[in-house]
Structure formats: structure tokens, C-alpha cells
């Protein structure tokens, strides 16, 4: 990919990702409402919420926290840009993790115990989801011989065929990353009390909007991750992503939150079985059946 293309892709991601993710959130809220026999908000509701939050008064519990929030937004965007210009998958994963750590630091900067519990739970969520993300990068490397996103998506063969376990594992941790029940420990999209709002408790107005915006960038990046498995067949990819997102909404509406121990244990076991299992089989096959 040459420089012009890279700059165009980066700009497209920066502009289009929030629009797409906001629409997705709107669809999410309507489908959730229909599942609860309600009509639900208008499609553009997430944008109304976001722009309203930007117009609210700026209240600072601790200004350091707001600085960390900007780090969260910045590094999430950097991760997304690196991904969509076809850069290095490992840098994408580490930048994304760094963004999340900034978010945690932001929540720790406030004095509220609710905020601290949320921050601790966000760290637990990171511990639960990061192994699978890193393992999937290894899976892509073993399958394609490259960590470059550009090399992975320009392969002619369908990666889901040889990496089904990786895909399943990524879908599993996507539930954690999208903050859906039963894994919405740190905070939830739904209206709740302080302990459930956790990590976002002390952020209000424009700062809450920044968190939402960063989350939207993250959502599109993660869906891009799943797209890689179907890259040669875009229509199949869109269908698969829609199915995955519908499953996430279904899980969100039919499950209660789990204990953090369950989240950690189940995601590590799933990562070990589906992710590492897939890697072992792939490695075995690539040696021509001789271990």
C-alpha cells in the first residue's frame, strides 16, 4: 500500500468509523428494545446522545483523568488507523491495549470507590480478552506467514476454513470488548446504578462523550479484525459480521452479568481450547502431519 492510499484509508477510518459504529449502536438499541417488546429509540439516538453530552457543562473531578481519557481516544484511533492502512497486527493489538490502560488510569484518577471498582474490573476484562487477541495474531502469522494486515487481507483463500477456533475465540472475547452481558463487568451500555456503570461513574458531559467515541472506534476495529477471516468474500464477511453482532445482542438481552471469576476463567478456558487448540492443529498440519 503506497502513502496516498494509506493516508486515504486512515482519513476514511477516522471519519467513517464513528458514523458506522453510531448507526450500529442505534440498530443495537432498536433490536434490544424489540426483544423486550418495546418500540425503542430512533435510529440516530446514539448521535443525539453524543452531541448532547458535548454540550453539557465540563465538571472536573480530577483533571488528570481527562488527560488519560484523551490517551484512550488517541491510542484507540492509532490502533484503528494502523489496522486499516494494512499495518502490523501486533502494533494494533498493543496500541488497543495501551488505550484501555489509559482508560483504567483515568478512572483511577478519580477518588470514587465506584470508579475504582470499575477500573479494577476493566483490568480483569483486559486480562480475560488480551490472550485471545494476541493468540489470534499468532494464528494469522502461522496461516499466512505475515503479521501485516495488508498481506493477510490480500490472501486469496478463506482464512475461516483453517482458523475456525481463532474466529470462535475472537467472537467470545468480542462480548467482553463490546461490553455486553454476561461480560459487562466494568461498565454497561444500559442505564444502571453506580456499581454497574463502574468505570464511567465519575465522567460526565463531554468526557463521557469521548469515552463513547473511543468505544465506537474500538468497535469498528474489532469488527475489522473479524472481517479478516472472510476477506476474499466481502458479502460473506458482511453476513457473518451481522450474524455475530446479532448474537452479541441476543446474549446481551438474555444473560445476567457473571462474577468476575467466571468471566476470567471461562474466557481463558475458551481461549486455550479454541484458540490454542486451533494453533496446535494448524502447526501440526503445516508440518505435513509429522509432529
Amino acid at each position, binding site marked *: 500500500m503506497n502513502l496516498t492510499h494509506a493516508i486515504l484509508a486512515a482519513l476514511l477510518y477516522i471519519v467513517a468509523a464513528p458514523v458506522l459504529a453510531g448507526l450500529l449502536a442505534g440498530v443495537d*438499541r432498536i433490536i434490544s428494545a424489540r426483544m423486550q417488546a418495546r418500540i*425503542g429509540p430512533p435510529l440516530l439516538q446514539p448521535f443525539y446522545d453524543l452531541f*448532547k453530552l458535548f454540550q453539557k457543562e*465540563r465538571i472536573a473531578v480530577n483533571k488528570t483523568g481527562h488527560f488519560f481519557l484523551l490517551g484512550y481516544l488517541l491510542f484507540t484511533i492509532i490502533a484503528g488507523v494502523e489496522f486499516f492502512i494494512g499495518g502490523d497486527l501486533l502494533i494494533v493489538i498493543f496500541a488497543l491495549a495501551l488505550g484501555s490502560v489509559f482508560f483504567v488510569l483515568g478512572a483511577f484518577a478519580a477518588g470514587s470507590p465506584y470508579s475504582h471498582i470499575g477500573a479494577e474490573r476493566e483490568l480483569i476484562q483486559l486480562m480475560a480478552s488480551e490472550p485471545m487477541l494476541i493468540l489470534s495474531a499468532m494464528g494469522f502469522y502461522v496461516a499466512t506467514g505475515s503479521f501485516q494486515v495488508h498481506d493477510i487481507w490480500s490472501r486469496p483463500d478463506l482464512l475461516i476454513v483453517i482458523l475456525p477456533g481463532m474466529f470462535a475465540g475472537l467472537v467470545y472475547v468480542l462480548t467482553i470488548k463490546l461490553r455486553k452481558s454476561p461480560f459487562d463487568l466494568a461498565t454497561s451500555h444500559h442505564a444502571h446504578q453506580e456499581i454497574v456503570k463502574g468505570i464511567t*461513574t465519575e465522567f*460526565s458531559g463531554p468526557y463521557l462523550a469521548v469515552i463513547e467515541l473511543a468505544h465506537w472506534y474500538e468497535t469498528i476495529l474489532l469488527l475489522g479484525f473479524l472481517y479478516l477471516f472472510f476477506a476474499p468474500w466481502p458479502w460473506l464477511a458482511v453476513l457473518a459480521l451481522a450474524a455475530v453482532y446479532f448474537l452479541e445482542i441476543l446474549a446481551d438481552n438474555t444473560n445476567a452479568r457473571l462474577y468476575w471469576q467466571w468471566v476470567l476463567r471461562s474466557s481463558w478456558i475458551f481461549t486455550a481450547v479454541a484458540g490454542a487448540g486451533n494453533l496446535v492443529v494448524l502447526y501440526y498440519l503445516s508440518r505435513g502431519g509429522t509432529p
Partner: protein
Amino acid sequence: MKLFQKSPWIIHYDGASCNGCDIEVLACLTPRYDVERFGIINTGNPKHADILLITGYINEQSQPVVRTIYEQMPEPKVVVAIGICATSGGIFRECYNTKGGVDSTIPVDVYVPGCAARPESIIDGVVQALAILERKKKEMAARP
């Protein structure tokens, strides 16, 4: 665009009452009334909320709590007193522990009468509060 009218987030607090109005407030969230149609969300967090719904009268114990919640809400914000107890103290008015209605403690923008207030009138009260919210936002923007 009048964004505050499209995305009013609510926090609900009960000063002290029989819980009748609380049940009606929560009924607004159920499929029958579904206030999320109007973008209304019951946040449960004063720092995220635009509208403070208070049911019940104010007493010695709930007064500092109500004041704290009100002060934690970022501007622009409005207060809706739900039910006759929140409006004037209601049947608890002559009790030894009663301070009075919500306006004994914080400024109230909309009064919704009723015992208990019906979900329809609660939604109507919130809709009236939205116009005040929009006006307060303009005043906030005009301030230097």
C-alpha cells in the same frame, strides 16, 4: 437542533414516601409506556443525568442526599417533583420530621401532581421539563 429534547437522561430519587410514585416512575420504562422511544434513559448516576425526578417529601435525613445529587449534576439540569408529597409534603406535611416538598431544599422546575402520579402525567411532566432544559441551555451558552 434541539438535542436536549431528544436525549434527556434521568435520575430518579425518592426523598421519603410510600413508594407509590416510584413504582409509577419505573412503570414508564416498561414496554407499555416505553419512554426510551423519546431517548429518555434512567441513568441512576447524577453525573450522567439531565433531569432529576424526585418522588416523596424531604426529611432531615434525605435533605443532604437530595442536595448532593442536585449539586453533582452538570448544567443544564432541571428538577421534576413527582406526586403530591414531592410537591407540598402531601399527607406527611404535618409530620414532625417533614421539611416539606422538594422546593424546601432545591429549586423545582415542574410539579406533577397526583397520588400516585400516573405514568402519563409523569411523561407529560418530563416533556414540559424538556422545554425548560432547552431554555436553560441557551442561557448557559449566553453566559460569559
